[in-house]
C-alpha cells in the first residue's frame, strides 16, 4: 500500500512516499508508523484514503493510497 507524506511530515519521516505491506486498517498503519518514526506521533495530521479525509478507523486495501497531511497552510 502506498503511503504519502506532505508538508513538515516529509521532514519528520525523511521521505514523501513509503510502500508498506500487510496493513489492514488505519490504526494499525499509524501505530506502525509511530513506532518507526517516533516524531510522527507528536505531529498533528489528518489521514486521507484515496483523497478522502477519514476520521476514526477504517479498513484498508492494498490498492488504497493513504496520505498523512499536516494542517493546511495554503494561500
Amino acid at each position, binding site marked *: 500500500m502506498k503511503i*504519502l507524506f*506532505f*508538508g*513538515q511530515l516529509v521532514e519528520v519521516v525523511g521521505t514523501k512516499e513509503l510502500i508498506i505491506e500487510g496493513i489492514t486498517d488505519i490504526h494499525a498503519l499509524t501505530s506502525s508508523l509511530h513506532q518507526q518514526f517516533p516524531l510522527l506521533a507528536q505531529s498533528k495530521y489528518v489521514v*486521507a484514503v484515496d*483523497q478522502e479525509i477519514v476520521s476514526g478507523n477504517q479498513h484498508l486495501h492494498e490498492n488504497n493510497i493513504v*496520505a498523512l*497531511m*499536516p*494542517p*493546511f*497552510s*495554503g*494561500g
Partner: protein
Amino acid sequence: MKERTPKNIFIQGAISSAFIADSIQKHSTKTDIGGHSIFLGQVRADEIEGKKVVAIEYTVYEEMALQKMHEIREAVFAEYPLTCMHVYHSLGKVAAGEICLFVFTSSAHRKAATEACSVLVERIKAELPVWGAEILEDETHQWKVNQ
C-alpha cells in the same frame, strides 16, 4: 447548469501583475457583468525570532487539491449568481511582496461577487491540501500556520 471538469489552478512561482491585468481585460466582452471582486494574497515578510521571511515555498497534494477545488467551485456557483470565477494559487517559491493567490469573481450585481470571493478565499485556505514553508533569510525554514 453546465458540467464543469476540474481545472488546474496551480501556477509555478509568483502570479504576475500582467497575468492579473490580462485576466481582467478578458472580461470586457462579457457585458452582462456589473461587478468584479478580486482577492490577491501577497507573501508577507514576517519576522520570526529576528529573521525575516524572504519567500514561501508551496507544495501540494495536487490530485486531491484539484478535486477539492472542483467541489468548492461547484458549491459556490450553486449558492451565488456568478457569471465567472477564476482561482489561481502558486506552487514552488514565491518571494516576499509577490502574489501567491488570485481569486476573481464576477456577477451582474456586486454583492454576489464580493460575498462569493470572500467565501472562496476562506475555503481555499481551510480546505485545500497545500503547505507553505516560510524560507528565512538565513536559508532555514519554518512551516506556515494559517490563522
